[in-house]
């Protein structure tokens, strides 16, 4: 266990219990330093959007947290526990290649439970509960290739949620969808977050989306990535289209854009 983890850099006065603590994280690719002794805390039950210049290391960060790529140095703990001791969900940008085309949508969703050797009956019960909670009305008996992009990504998200993860990672989950679908999926994600309160890390390249969905926006600098700013956005949920024209939203978004452009110019 870590004793008294340091608060998030550029943090806020309100004490929040850290869910994920990242300490001394270093990563390089072919001698290019992406992270150098990076420290960060992700508070429990919040939705954090990660935003930053292209290639600054957003994906690398969540992939290291989710154990998809090894870290060179440093430690990432979840409430003091290792990744292998917790349940987490990961949603890939490329849903077409992340789902299993040989399984029906419903079996894709239940697959993580199968891996965990949950009996058939309970698997069904849990997926039915999830479907009801999310108010999903699409036909899940179909195969992924018979569904629209948005429906497939929704299936991916449900597959990540079925294990009732402690933490949910999404790497640009909507960037392959058309605008209408993206809007719909944002609402779905907001709903999921409201229903479950799962700690969520969302990488987004769309600043409006990043702010709209977030409790906090983590702005990264060009690599070696540092926390350029860590911005709070506290507007009540559910947020709606009206939110987009509220002064506070506009202020936060403008501030993030400022920081972002400052970082881009530095490069």
């Amino acid at each position, binding site marked *: 266990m870590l004793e008294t983890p340091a608060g998030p850099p550029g943090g806020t006065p309100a004490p929040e219990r850290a869910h994920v603590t990242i300490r001394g994280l270093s990563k390089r690719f072919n001698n290019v330093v992406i992270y150098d002794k990076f420290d960060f805390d992700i508070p429990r039950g919040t939705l954090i959007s990660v935003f930053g210049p292209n290639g600054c290391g957003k994906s690398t960060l969540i992939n290291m947290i989710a154990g998809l790529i090894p870290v060179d140095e440093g430690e990432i703990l979840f409430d003091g526990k290792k990744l292998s001791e917790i349940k987490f969900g990961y949603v890939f940008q490329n849903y077409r*290649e992340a789902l299993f085309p*040989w399984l029906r949508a419903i079996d894709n969703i239940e697959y993580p439970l199968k891996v965990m050797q949950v009996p058939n009956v309970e698997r069904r019960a849990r997926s039915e509960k999830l479907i009801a909670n999310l108010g999903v009305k699409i036909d899940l008996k179909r195969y992924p290739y018979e569904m629209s992009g948005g429906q497939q990504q929704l299936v991916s998200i449900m597959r990540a949620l079925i294990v009732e993860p402690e933490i949910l990672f999404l790497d640009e989950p909507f960037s392959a969808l058309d605008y209408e679908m993206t809007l719909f999926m944002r609402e779905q994600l907001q709903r999921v977050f409201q229903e479950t309160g799962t700690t969520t890390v969302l990488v987004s390249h769309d600043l409006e989306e990043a702010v709209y969905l977030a409790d906090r926006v983590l702005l990264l600098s060009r690599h070696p990535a540092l926390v350029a700013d860590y911005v709070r956005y506290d507007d009540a949920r559910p947020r709606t289209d009206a939110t987009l024209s509220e002064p506070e939203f506009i202020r936060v978004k403008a501030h993030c854009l400022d920081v972002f452009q400052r970082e881009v110019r530095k490069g």
Partner: protein
Amino acid sequence: MKRFDPLLPIIGVVGLIVIWSFAVWGQVVDPVLLPSPTKTFWALWKGMNGGALGFDFLKTVQRTAISILIAAAIALPLGIVLGSSERLYRSVEFVIDFFRSTPASAMFPLFLVLFGVGDKTKISVAAFGAMLVILFNVAYGVMNARKTRLLAAKVMGASRLRVLTDVMLLESLPQTFIGLRNGVSLALVIIVVAEMFIGSTDGLGHRVFEAQQLFEMPDMYAAIFAAGALGYGFNLLFLLVERRFVHWSGK
């Protein structure tokens, strides 16, 4: 007009028969070398219904089927093992590619020494050729499994074995079927050639060869058509099985 589309393939067949008939009627080719379509199909019909052709046909089916079964039984597990470790595959890739490029017919003398003049030689050369083709395709199918899909299984906590059985195996199926189809075509070619020249008393190759020697041209053409139908049938069979079990292929 669209609803006649399924009939389009028939046009080529009818066209061929018409040209053939005119060639015979106009005596473009020596009538002894080119019998009429009716004579040929009559020979085919008679041969397949209780004639020697039917027996030879079944013999060839049997040999090809056995060789493809042996080839698949070796190549499928081996291909999966080789494909699941890229370094392992790279270390034997040259050997596989080399023998895959070697004409299988060049192996007959060697296998004759090993197995003597008989079915064993024919079947083992065909199995050898088909095995390499299937092996290569299975290994590539496994190696080229979508990285995201493997990662997805991994983040869901799947063990290495589970990733292999639940993801890599299924990912490799479309490519595996390509290997099976190519393998069965090659096996048939080798079997028919072997039946012609490696002291055979039966099989389609033997039938074609014998009919030619005895100058029974309608019988020879009939046997050729039977061999063609067999090759086409094997291919179609694998295609249907693939469409049934690998429904996601190409989607």
